[in-house]
């Protein structure tokens, strides 16, 4: 393989192949990533901490390992970054908050440890909405990340820096977290792939929690294959994470490259069509994606889901209730340590009753059954909307951030199913549009298969923002 493309554009698989063939070094990949970061991040603000020395040391270790015939898997020598809620031993972990601006954990989160043990190259920590729930705030220790497709627009959240960094070509993969859509939302708005794995698939231990029963850890990446390879490294049972499931870890790449023949996909079209905020361009793109999947061999049928409002109510009551329980002491005693947006969201959990929370969990059981025993008892996967439109401009955010909505991701935090955000095109304003592929519990393999098959013919994920392509590293 001769490398004719910028090193920061190589997929994880392509870079891995070149590393193993001795055609490139981890140090060269890392330097290309650092150059791209230096070129574009002063405008994008994806990073809250760059760990250059650690990255160069990780790269040297990976090169030494390759030289001595040691191969720790697909992430060896590959640069990546972590959302700043992933605990990192000896490296500041702030949750983008004044409350934790000097917090330096003594241990790695499980995901950080697995990526390090797998030979990955940690470039640094990327920004988030404060405690994974705030908004695009300007009253925090670091500025909010900006959308690489249009810097006047926000990224979505909460994995804001994760999505911006991948979209701007700084690296192929970052880790995010998803409690109500915090991987899939920013992936949608920034035109990246984002996978919320099944609840219990990836350990959450050492990651700052937002809502215990809704939190998921997963990757955002340039391509579906990048996410599949990342999953190979970060998945697995963790007896010290109460939510972790003892299930076999499959080969997540096993079905990549297959067409969709024989698959039944339920298209949840009515789920969003009645939403008054739906952008007609999003509908057209979703319909076109459904047709493309049918052309790839899938049997695509329209299906009904329970009303979105039921999922939304269960998700919000559980999320705000659990989040308030986590932050109760600090929010009462140090209200101004929080930014305005996070404070407003977190404090609202205090007005819920115990009965509200219990009723939400009861409804959750019925909704989970309706999706899993109902729809996914018949269909192999669901095609669902992701966002109602494109990323809003920063100017839309006044003092009351909660007014902004537009995500349709929460249902699959309520049910725990794996859900993949997949770019499907661009609106007339030049901003990305996206869809969700939802699978049966622990069947990420089928979700990734569908995503990769669509991606291969649609070519959307190959497109990058112009200003990121013009940077020196590229």
């Amino acid at each position, binding site marked *: 393989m001769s490398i004719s493309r910028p090193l920061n554009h190589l997929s994880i698989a392509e870079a891995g192949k070149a590393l193993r063939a001795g055609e490139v070094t981890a140090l060269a990949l890392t330097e290309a990533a650092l150059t791209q970061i230096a070129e574009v991040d002063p405008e994008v603000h994806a990073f809250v901490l760059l760990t250059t020395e650690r990255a160069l040391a990780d790269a040297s270790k990976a090169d030494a390992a390759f030289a001595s015939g040691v191969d720790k898997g697909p992430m060896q020598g590959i640069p990546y970054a972590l959302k700043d809620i992933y605990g990192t031993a000896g490296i500041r972990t702030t949750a983008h908050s004044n409350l934790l601006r000097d917090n330096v954990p003594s241990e790695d989160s499980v995901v950080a440890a697995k990526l390090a043990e797998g030979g990955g190259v940690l470039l640094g920590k990327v920004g988030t909405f404060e405690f994974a729930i705030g908004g695009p705030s300007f009253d925090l220790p670091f500025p909010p990340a900006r959308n690489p497709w249009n810097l006047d627009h926000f990224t979505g959240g909460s994995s804001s820096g994760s999505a911006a960094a991948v979209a701007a070509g700084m690296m192929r993969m970052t880790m995010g977290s998803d409690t109500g859509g915090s991987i899939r939302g920013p992936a949608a708005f920034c035109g990246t792939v984002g996978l919320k794995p099944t*609840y*219990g698939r990836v350990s959450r231990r050492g990651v700052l929690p937002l809502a215990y*029963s809704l939190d998921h850890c997963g990757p955002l990446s340039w391509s579906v294959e990048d996410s599949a390879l990342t999953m190979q490294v970060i998945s697995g*049972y963790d*007896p010290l994470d109460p*939510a*972790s*499931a*003892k*299930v076999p870890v499959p080969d997540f790449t096993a079905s990549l490259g297959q067409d969709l023949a024989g698959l039944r996909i339920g298209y949840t079209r009515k789920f969003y069509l009645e939403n008054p905020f739906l952008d007609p361009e999003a509908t057209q793109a979703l319909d076109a994606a459904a047709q493309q999947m049918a052309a790839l061999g899938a049997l695509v049928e329209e299906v009904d889901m329970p*009303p979105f*409002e*039921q999922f*939304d*109510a*269960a998700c*919000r*009551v559980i999320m*705000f209730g659990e989040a308030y329980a986590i932050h109760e002491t600090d*929010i*009462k005693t140090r*209200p*101004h340590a929080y930014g*305005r947006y996070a*404070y*407003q*969201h977190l*404090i*609202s*959990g*205090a*007005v*819920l009753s115990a009965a*509200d929370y*219990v*009723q*939400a*969990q*009861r*409804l*959750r*059981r*019925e909704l*989970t059954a309706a999706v899993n025993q109902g729809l996914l008892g018949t269909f192999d996967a669901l095609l669902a909307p992701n966002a109602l439109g494109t990323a809003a401009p920063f100017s839309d955010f006044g*003092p*009351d951030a*909660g*007014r902004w909505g537009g995500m349709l991701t929460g249902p699959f935090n309520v049910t*725990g199913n794996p859900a993949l955000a997949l770019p499907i095109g661009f609106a007339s304003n030049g901003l990305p549009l996206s869809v969700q592929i939802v699978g049966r*519990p*622990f069947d990420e393999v089928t979700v990734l298969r569908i995503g990769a098959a669509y991606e291969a013919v649609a070519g959307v994920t190959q497109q990058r923002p112009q200003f990121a392509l013009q940077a020196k590293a590229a």
Partner: protein
Amino acid sequence: MSQPSPLPDTSEIEQRLRNAGIVPPADRAAGTYASAQRLLAVVHWLRQPRTVAAEPSNTFTLASKD
């Protein structure tokens, strides 16, 4: 279709917050009340007839653990 109940006004939200031991800082009160009101606007969806099996225990059917 669920029937929404009347939304609580600011004084009721203030009372709920006081019950929780919270008085929001003055510069954040308006946003706090708006956020709380939006949350309370959806709870009527939770109060519809449920099946006997709809209880919070083991909501997920996860694979067996040690």
